[in-house]
């Protein structure tokens, strides 16, 4: 019994590795987490959703599977009883319809889990998700407007939560589905360290003084400017271009004066 289970596990792992190999080789699915340029490697943390998220997805998978397959099986049994010959003829087709989508869905869940990456650096976060369409979102902490941690009862049971990070701007934030939604948000689904992520962003907010909507001057720049004014530097400062311009005007004026 235990031996059989182990064999099945090994076989399914082997199959899955094959699928994964095809995905990376032929479908150009990247294996490594995304890299954030300019961030120092010590502060960068790359992680996938927690293991609990995989179990969470599988729970819904089993519920859906049970519901659909029971209906399909009953339908097939009805046909078998009513018209035994037709029932036997369509049996392979019926069972293929019942079983194949389940296998595909099961593999898809694993692929979805394995292609999801969350990368947090000291300045920004990058979220990658998707199999057919690989979607990478980059958001700097400076631009984040609010952070929401969401946890439903089932998620609580699996010890996971979603962190929704929003930037300024409107639009749909109902996201959660993989796909082409491009909104003003980043979603970290099914992570076990939601509180940690939230406090990291809160800490970054503590350091920043801007309102997070593209202020052109940082606090330091304003400070630098006032400093320069205070020392009387800007009052009599001519830039090289200004001097050149003035000299051009002079030349023209001189020419005009001599011509008249």
């Amino acid at each position, binding site marked *: 019994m235990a031996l059989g289970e182990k064999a099945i596990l090994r076989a399914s792992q082997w199959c899955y590795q094959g699928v994964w190999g095809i995905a990376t080789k032929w*479908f*150009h699915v990247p294996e490594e987490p995304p890299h954030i*340029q*300019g961030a120092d490697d010590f502060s960068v943390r790359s992680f996938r959703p927690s293991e609990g998220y995989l179990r969470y997805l599988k729970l819904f998978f089993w519920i859906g599977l049970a519901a659909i397959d029971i209906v399909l099986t009953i339908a097939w049994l009805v046909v078998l009883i009513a018209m035994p010959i037709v029932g036997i003829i369509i049996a392979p087709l019926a069972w293929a319809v019942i079983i194949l989508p389940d296998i595909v869905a099961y593999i898809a869940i694993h692929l979805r889990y394995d292609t999801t990456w969350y990368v947090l650096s000291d*300045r*920004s976060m990058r979220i990658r998700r*998707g199999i*057919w*369409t*690989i*979607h*990478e*979102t*980059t*958001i*700097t*902490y*400076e*631009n984040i407007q609010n952070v929401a941690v969401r946890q439903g009862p089932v998620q609580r049971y699996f010890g996971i939560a979603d962190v929704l990070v929003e*930037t*300024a*701007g*409107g*639009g*749909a*934030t109902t996201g959660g589905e993989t796909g*082409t*939604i*491009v*909104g*003003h948000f*980043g979603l970290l689904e099914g992570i076990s360290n939601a509180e940690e992520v939230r406090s990291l962003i809160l800490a970054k907010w503590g350091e*920043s003084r*801007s309102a997070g*909507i*593209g*202020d*052109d001057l*940082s606090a*330091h*720049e304003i*400070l*630098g400017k006032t*400093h*320069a004014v205070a*020392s009387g*530097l800007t009052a*009599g*400062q*001519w*830039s090289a271009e*200004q*001097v050149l311009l*003035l000299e051009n*005007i*002079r030349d023209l*004026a001189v020419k*005009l*004066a001599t011509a*008249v």
Partner: protein
Amino acid sequence: MSATTATGLESKFDAFKLERPDPKLFQYYLWCALLTGPLSPIVLLSFWFRYSTLRFKFDDTGVAMSWGVLFKQEVYLTYRRIQDIHLTRNLLQRWMGLAKISLQTASGSSKAEMSIEGVLQAEELRDFLYSRMRGAKDESSSTMRAPTDHGVAEHIAAAGNERATRALEEIRDALKTLVEKRGV
């Protein structure tokens, strides 16, 4: 092999030189148009218009993109006002080495303000944009330098002042002669 070509491209990458999308983008559009079936001639025509008129212009402060034949569009946005950067690659785009970079500002729609398509070095371009985004760099390091440069700045300012004063005086004199000659 692919790794060496990738690094080769990386060293050559210069966003300021980007003006036109890569011809591969049109190939991609061609496939997309074919997928629409009977509508493909119309779709292809609109794609062709878009491809043939698509222009980029990256400068120090922002990026401009324009396209369109009948209805011309030009979008300009500054790097510092970018809220989030999205890099998306679907299967077809991955096979062709293409990607789409969607840039969002703090506007009211969830649609991207600018979608840059047809750049082969999309990751490099993304890094280029990211490094100019607000909060991607420590802003204090470059701006806090001002006080330490005081001495030098003062020196330059003094020299510039002297030249400027001289130029102004000469303008005044020239204008004075002009006025006198005219007999006003």
